[in-house]
């Protein structure tokens, strides 16, 4: 019998209008308990209005060893940023 309770990752929306943000993890034997634990552990000081949780083993993460090929190619695509385009100062509302 495996008695170690699985690990869950907890995401909390601090107020409406903001996205959920990872706040930490905890152990629980099932979803209901994980939700209650998340409330008891991570919102004791009114830190949230909504909770997402997922069992840690279900998260797929990018591999940091591939960081160069994953993320560096975006570095020279400056044309994706608004400041790349030179416009006259007098132009407004754009």
């Amino acid at each position: 019998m495996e008695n170690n309770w699985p690990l869950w990752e907890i995401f909390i929306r601090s107020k409406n209008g903001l996205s959920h943000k990872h706040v930490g993890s905890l152990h629980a034997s099932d979803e209901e308990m994980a939700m209650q634990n998340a409330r008891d552990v991570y919102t004791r000081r009114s830190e949230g209005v909504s909770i997402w949780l997922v069992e840690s083993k279900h998260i797929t993460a990018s591999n940091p060893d591939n960081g160069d090929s994953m993320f560096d190619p975006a570095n020279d695509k400056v044309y994706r940023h608004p400041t790349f385009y030179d416009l006259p100062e007098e132009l407004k509302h754009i």
Partner: protein
Amino acid sequence: MDTSFAYILHLADNALILGQRLSEWCGHGPILEQDMAMTNISLDLVGQSRSLFQLAGELEGKGRSEDDLAFMRVEIDYKNCLLAEQPNGDFAKTILRQFFYDAFSFHNYTALLQSSNEQVRAIAEKSLKEVTYHLKWSSEWVIRLVDGTEESLLRMKTALLELWTFTGELYTPVDYEIKAAESGLGVDFDKIKTLWLEEVNKVFDMAGIKVPVGGWMQKGGKKGIHTEHLGFLLADMQYLQRTYPGQKW
């Protein structure tokens, strides 16, 4: 003694004594997350007792503070149900005691939303939010432990044998409760009894365990006649106030 004072004091004592019991778990829970959950519930209960003691003090009109009422009475003046003072035992017993109390408290506070006293309505509204969560927590644990392993089922059955006899008192009114119901301050106990039994049956059904039939019910706590456990609890709780009376802390 004024009946509305006695009635509010009784509600306050219920919350305080159970909160005090539950706080004994702090630092000793079966797993960190549940240690925190139990402390949260205990904090809610002591918080409820403070609001109720303050109101009781006002109703009495003798200038007694929440701490005077919480710490400076003797055993026979406490009006909590016997259930609340029962020792924690193992986690199964704590869970079942909590569940029986939560099921009562949930319906009691729901009914108190209609109380004739505005402050009681305000306390009920705030407390009901807390108790709704407690009831969900304890119900789910009842189901988990009954459904879990042979050992957890056996422990739950043992706890049921020990605690069932203290449940009747929850919904059997004493004089000040009957008067409070008549004046509109309190609640209708026939309804509470029905709702409590429905609630317990519902969760026991989901868990797969039966409510005992019949059986002798203990009573007395609400009238100040307690089990031996209360004296020890009070000795512990009142120690500083008794040893150094009249000090500020």
